[in-house]
């Protein structure tokens, strides 16, 4: 979705970062004394969610820059660290939780690289691995089109690792940029020191077409992942949300095949293609730091938003029950069945790649992977180990 209105918080001093955004959006900014003007602009429109995607507010993050992932009770959490650099998204997925999360839903870019740098320096000092992501409240790479923030973060993480290698501290933290775009150009010539993992949320072409408006096609995402791998980055994949429908197992199998065997790139599905049908190579299992899988789950209030904004979508009409965390989840035997299939498909290609569940319980882990990271922090430690193994400098 195209950004149509640009508001800038008058309290923020003019800087290069803002000039860059103004230039890239080619919009005449409106300076506002307080956020109410912006909130009203969004809230008073007929469709605040769409309006919020078309309205960019450049402001400062008045809260914490770094947050612990809130997780959810009764289900295992991966101990992720959130770097809060912006909110909301220009793409439009029917199931996106951010539609119900922000009041109002609004695209916000937080200026203040110095604040982010200072917060990151604090965690880099700790003798610990942090897996830091910007993709919790927004898509990490939508910003690549209008700011150079993603590239700056990649450099910041690369430098932390160098500083550490000179000290006795062997741990390092990594940045995970999670996306459904193919906005990777600015990552190309960076000396990233392998401390950034570029991650794609993947789904079947059917789900992408019906539920993920404005996102890149599957083949385009995989092509971009291959490109990043070529540039020396480690990559990751998130099968989340897995949507259960008739024939979904075959479709997810095909997606997994495409990851490892490569994809046919043709002009119909990939606008960046030159029109020639090509076969791109698959991703090497050793380039993949982790693959997470999670079936669709949602806060009950999201259902009506989906029904209103995506009347043709049937995504909320699966066999959902109320989970222990009060989110709607597929009936457990159905989750276990699809997980077992997907895990076995992945294992055929990549027996050693770390697969983990986002927010699942002991029974699901046991029946699908055969073990359960029971102790608090155990799943996080597994992911950290994968980081240490796969993200050593090239």
């Amino acid at each position, binding site marked *: 979705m195209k950004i149509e209105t640009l508001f800038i918080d008058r309290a923020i001093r003019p800087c290069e970062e803002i000039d860059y955004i103004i230039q890239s959006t080619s919009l005449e900014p409106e300076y506002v004394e307080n956020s109410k003007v912006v909130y009203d602009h969004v809230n008073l429109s007929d469709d605040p969610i769409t309006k919020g995607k078309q309205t960019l507010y450049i402001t400062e993050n008045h809260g914490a820059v770094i947050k612990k992932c809130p997780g959810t009770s009764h289900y295992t959490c991966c101990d992720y660290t959130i770097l809060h650099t912006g909110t909301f998204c220009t793409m439009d997925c029917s199931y996106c939780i951010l539609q119900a999360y922000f009041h109002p839903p609004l695209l916000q870019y937080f200026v203040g690289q110095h604040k982010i740098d200072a917060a990151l320096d604090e965690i880099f000092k700790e003798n610990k691995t942090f897996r830091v992501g910007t993709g919790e409240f927004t898509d990490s790479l939508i910003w690549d089109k209008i700011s150079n923030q993603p590239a700056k973060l990649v450099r910041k993480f690369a430098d932390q690792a160098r500083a550490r290698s000179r000290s006795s501290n062997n741990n390092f933290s990594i940045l995970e940029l999670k996306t459904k775009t193919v906005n990777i150009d600015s990552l190309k010539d960076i000396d990233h020191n392998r401390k950034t993992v570029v991650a794609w949320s993947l789904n079947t072409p059917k789900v992408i077409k019906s539920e993920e408006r404005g996102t890149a096609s599957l083949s385009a995402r995989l092509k971009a992942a291959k490109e990043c791998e070529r540039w020396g980055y480690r990559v990751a994949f998130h099968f989340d949300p897995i949507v259960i429908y008739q024939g979904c197992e075959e479709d997810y199998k095909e997606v997994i095949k495409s990851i490892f065997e490569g994809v046919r790139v043709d002009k119909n599905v990939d606008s960046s293609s030159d029109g020639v049908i090509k076969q791109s190579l698959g991703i090497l299992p050793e380039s993949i730091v982790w693959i997470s899988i999670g079936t669709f789950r949602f806060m009950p209030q999201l259902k009506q938003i989906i*029904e209103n904004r995506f009347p043709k979508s049937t995504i909320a009409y699966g066999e959902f029950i109320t989970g222990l965390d009060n989110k709607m989840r597929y009936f457990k035997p*159905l989750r276990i069945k699809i997980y077992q299939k997907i895990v076995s498909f992945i294992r055929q290609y990549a027996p050693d790649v770390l697969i983990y569940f986002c927010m699942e*319980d*002991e029974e699901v882990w046991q029946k699908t992977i055969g073990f359960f990271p029971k102790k608090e922090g155990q799943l996080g430690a597994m992911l950290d180990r994968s980081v240490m193994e796969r993200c050593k400098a090239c």
Partner: protein
Amino acid sequence: MLNLQTTISNSALLKKRVKQVCLDAIDLSDESFKISSDNLFFSGNKSSSDNSLSNLTNLSNLALSIRLTGLINPIVLREIDDKYIVVSGFKRVSAMRSIGMRETPASILSHLDFDKDKTYDFRFYEVQSALIAISDNAFSRQLNVMEQARGVRLLKRFCSSYDIAQNSPAIFNVNMGESLINMLDDIANMPLSLHELIESDKLSMSSALKFKQYGYDKSLIESFATLFSKIKCSLSKQKEIITNIHEIAAREEISASDLIESKEISQILDSQSDNCSSNVNDENQKANLIRSILFNRRYPNLFKAKERFSNNLKMLNLNSGMKSDIKLDPPADFEGRDYTITLKFSTVEELAKKANILSALTKNPLFGDITD
């Protein structure tokens, strides 16, 4: 949009004169300003045949009252050509006619400037008439949902929801928010068959609003109206039925009408009760049967799991002898892992005996199957 305050302050422009009117000159078929429900005095639990009976009784009571004490409040009419249409007093006119009265005093509305100035805003006259039609009813008794809806529809032609909400205490004798006004307007614009269901308490307003949320057209709403005219259930069950039909139809890419008219559901709806006096019960039973069919189709795996659990439970024979005081409940929707056993006892000896039964149960392979 007209401003209601301006309209109210212009009320002096509205001329009311009381005169004797011939009852035959009143055109009752013009219901433009009709607010009150025909089945005003009905109890919600009555069937439609009960309703028409009750309606007649109440109408004749009103007629008797008029004969005894005369007409206390004159009816309000508008003159159109050489006829009159009713603004307020439909029932009174019917009652008077039923006892053979030929004339009645009536308040006739017209606009003072109407004849003099052709350019005057006719909408004032319409809104003023609507205000009289609503208030005349609302300040003598509490309006039901459909009456409020009809009132809102009359006003919404010329006034904004916000304006109506702001002035609602003075018009409807009750405070109403803007969103309620919009909901009532939505209801008023739905087919008449649905209005009847709402008035007879067979369908709630919030259930009916789901049709609007789903963007259903008139014919689809009519299918639901037929369904709800033959069953009776609580608000939450009505919503469950509508939601499940909508979701099954969307998921299976069929029309909701086809689902409602499917053999399975039609058979239940059209089945006749052996006992005519148990009609309400019968309608409740039909609702439950339909809910079960829909639940099975909407949640086939969960339905099977629940069925399997209850079959296994039967085989464990927990209902016989001392075991009947032991109750086993699965985790909600089988999501968690915790099963619950409830056990009743009154003496220590009894507890010991039941503890032995429990201990034996744990060795029963069936019990293991249940909790696996």
